[in-house]
C-alpha cells in the first residue's frame, strides 16, 4: 500500500529517442553542469560525446543521446538553455535529415584462423585495421550505433578482447547549420 504525501500518475506515455547538441563555453565545470542537470532531474543519458570545436571562441560541442517522453525532452532543452555557459541547444531529429556516427576501436586476440575470419568480416564493412600482430588485430569502426552493436556481437566468438566506443555525434545534412549565438 502506498502512503505518500505526493500524488502518483498512472499515465503511460511514449518514450522517444533524441540526440541533443549543446554548445557551451569551454570552461571548468561546464560539462559537470550539463551532466549534473541530467542526473539531478532524472533524465537519461544513453551516450555522450564532447570536445572543443572552436578554439577562438572557446566553445565545446556536447552531443547527448537521450530518451524520454515528449514533455521530458522539452524540459531537457529548456533546462539546458537556462545554464549560463550554454550558448545554444539543438534537437537533432533521428530521421533522414540527420547524419549520426559513432566510432569504436575493437581489439581481437585470437588464433590465426579466427583472426582471418575477423579480418574478412571487417573488410566487408570497410573498416580500417590500425594495428596487427600474430595474435591480435585492432579495428577502427565508424558507423551507426546499431551497426557497431551487430559487429561487436559477431566478433565476440572470434575473440573480441577489448571494446572502446565513443558516444554518437550528429550533423545536419545539406547547407543549413544551427547558428551559434
Amino acid at each position, binding site marked *: *500500500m502506498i502512503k505518500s504525501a505526493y*500524488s502518483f500518475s498512472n499515465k503511460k506515455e511514449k518514450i522517444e529517442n533524441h540526440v541533443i547538441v549543446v554548445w557551451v563555453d569551454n570552461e571548468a565545470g561546464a560539462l559537470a553542469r550539463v551532466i549534473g542537470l541530467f542526473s539531478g532531474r532524472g533524465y537519461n543519458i544513453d551516450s555522450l560525446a564532447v570536445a572543443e570545436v572552436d578554439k577562438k571562441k572557446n566553445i565545446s560541442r556536447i552531443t547527448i543521446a537521450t530518451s524520454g517522453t515528449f514533455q521530458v525532452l522539452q*524540459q531537457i532543452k529548456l533546462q539546458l538553455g537556462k545554464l549560463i555557459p550554454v550558448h545554444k541547444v539543438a534537437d537533432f531529429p533521428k530521421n533522414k535529415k540527420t547524419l549520426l556516427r559513432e566510432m569504436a576501436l575493437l581489439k581481437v586476440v585470437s588464433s590465426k584462423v579466427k583472426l582471418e575470419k575477423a579480418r574478412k568480416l571487417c573488410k566487408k564493412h570497410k573498416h580500417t585495421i590500425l594495428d596487427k600482430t600474430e595474435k591480435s588485430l585492432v579495428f577502427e569502426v565508424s558507423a551507426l550505433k546499431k551497426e557497431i552493436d551487430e559487429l561487436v556481437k559477431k566478433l565476440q566468438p572470434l575473440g573480441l578482447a577489448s571494446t572502446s566506443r565513443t558516444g554518437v555525434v550528429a550533423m545536419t545534412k545539406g547547407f543549413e547549420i544551427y547558428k551559434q*549565438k
Partner: protein
Amino acid sequence: MANLMTGAEMIFKVLEDQDVKHIFGYPGGAVLPIYDELKNHKKIKHILVRHEQGAGHAAEGYARSTGKAGVLLVTSGPGATNAVTALTDAYMDSVPLVCITGQVPTHLIGTDAFQECDTTGITRPCTKHNWLVKDVNKLSSILHKAFEVALTGRPGPVLVDIPKDIQFKKGKYTKPNKAKKNNIKLNISFNERDNSIEKVVELIKKSSKPVFYTGGGVINSGPEATELLRELVSITGFPITSTLQGLGAFPGDNNQFLGMLGMHGTYEANNAMHDCDLMINIGARFDDRITGKIDEFSPKSKKIHIDIDPSSINKNVNVDLAIVGDVKSVLKKLILSLKEKYPNFIDSNKQEISSWWNQIEVWRKKNSLGFSNSNELIKPQYAVQRLYELTKAQDAFITTEVGQHQMWAAQHYKFNKPNRWMTSGGLGTMGYGLPAAIGVQVAHPDKLVIDIAGEASVLMTMQEMSTAVQYKLPIKIFILNNQYMGMVRQWQELLHEKNYSESYTAALPDFVKLAEAYGCVGIRANKLEELDLKITEMLSVNRPVIFDCVVDKTENCYPMIPSGKAHNQMLLGEQDKKEDISEEGKILV
C-alpha cells in the same frame, strides 16, 4: 601600473558599486583577508550571525522584503556547507542571493586541505550559477556578473568561491558597466510581435468561468507589477486566488480575492480552479502542493501561463497559451490591449460571469477557514487572527517557519502589500523564519517584524536570537507552541493510524527563560483571556521578544486536499476526515 587593488579590496568595491548596504556573515580562516578589509568600508554594515544557515536565511528575508539581492559572506568548508540549505531554499523560491565563500589557497585545492570542500561542486545544483575565481583580474567582473545573474530573469542564488591567495593578490578592477552583458537569457523580454496578447484578450472575453491564479512571480516582478495586477483584476471583475508565495500581491481583504489555493487553500479557491473554463496563471509554477492530483487538475479549462522562466511552461501541466516574459511588461500590454478592444469591459461582461460569482458565493458560504473555537484553550487559528487584528494597522512584515503554523498564518493573516510575507515554500525549511525576520528587520529597522513560528521549527535556528540582541533588532518570535511537530503529527493521524512516531518533543526548553538567557524579553500566554493583553504587551516592547503562545495540542490544519486527490475533493474538517478514511482514500493520500 596604477589603480591596482587586492582581491579583498575589490570585493568591497564591487559591493559599493552594487549599492549593497548590509552583508550577513561569519568569519573563518579562508575569509580573514576580507574581514580585515571590512574596517575600511563604513558604508557596508556587516551583521554577524551565529550559524551560516542563519546568514543565508537572513539574506533571503532581506532580499524578499526589499527586492534587492541579499549578500552573505562565509568561510570555506563548513561555512560553505552550512549555507547550502539557505541557497537551496532561495533557489526553490526564486530569491536573489549573492553568496561569497572563502576557499583554501589555489595551490592547496584538491589536497584535502584544512576546511577545504568542493564548494562549487556542492552548490552547483542549488545555485543559478557559481564561480571559482582563479585569477584576481577576473574577480571584479565575475562578482558584477554574479549580481546580474542573481537579479535578472527568474531571480535566484549565485555563489562566488574565492581562494585565500586571490584575496591577497593585486589586480585590476573592472567597473560594473564594463562587465559584459552579452548573455541574452539574463534579459528575457517577451516577444511582442506574435499576437499572444490578443489571444489572451479574446479568451478573457469568451470566458464565463474565469479565475486568476497568481504567484510569487508577480512580487518578484516589482511593485509596478502588483499595481498592474490589481488594475487587471479590477477591470475584468474576475475572481483571483494566490499561491503561498504570491500573498500580498493582491489585497487579502478584497472581495474578489478567494484566498490562497492548494493543499491548505480555501474551498472556494480550489473549487474555482477545478471548475473554471479559463485559468490565467501569472507568475506561478503549478507546484504539486497547488495542483493536487495532476491527472484531474482543472479538467475543463483553457490555461494561460505567464512566466519569465521558459522551463516553467508545460513542466507539470500542459497549457494552451504560454507567454514567456516579465509579469510587469506582459500585464502592461495586456491591460492596454483589453482596454482598447473592450472599453468598459467589466460592465459589459458582468452578466457573462454572474452565475460564476453566484457559484463562488455558494462555496464561500462553507466558510472553509472556520474552526470551532474553544473557551478555555487558545486555538492556534484564533491566535493568528488576534495577532492580525492587533497588528493590521501597522504595515507589519511576517515571516514563518514551516508546518501547521505556517499554513494558519497564510490562511488567517491578510496581506495588503507585496514583500510583507516571507516564508519557505518550495523547500519547506524549518528554521527559516527567525533568521529571515532578522534580515527583514535589518532592511526595515522601524517596522514591525513578526516570525509566526512553531516550537519545533524555531529551535532549529534559535541561536540567531543572539544576533537579534546584538544588533538591537526588535523582532517578535510568536511561537504557536503545541509541543508537536504539528504537520507531521497531522499526517501521522491521517495516514499512519495515529502512530505519532517521534513527532512529540518531550523536553522543550522554557521559552520565557530562554528569552531571558539570550537577553531579550520572554512572554507566555496560557489562557484564552490573556491572549490579547499579552500580544499588546509584546507589541509595546521595543526589543526582541520570544512569545510562547501555548495552544491546543491536537488541532489539525483544515481545509486540506489530501495529496493524490483533486481540487474538488477537499477535507473541510474533522467531520469530513472520519467519513473519508476509506481504504482507497488512505492509498491515495
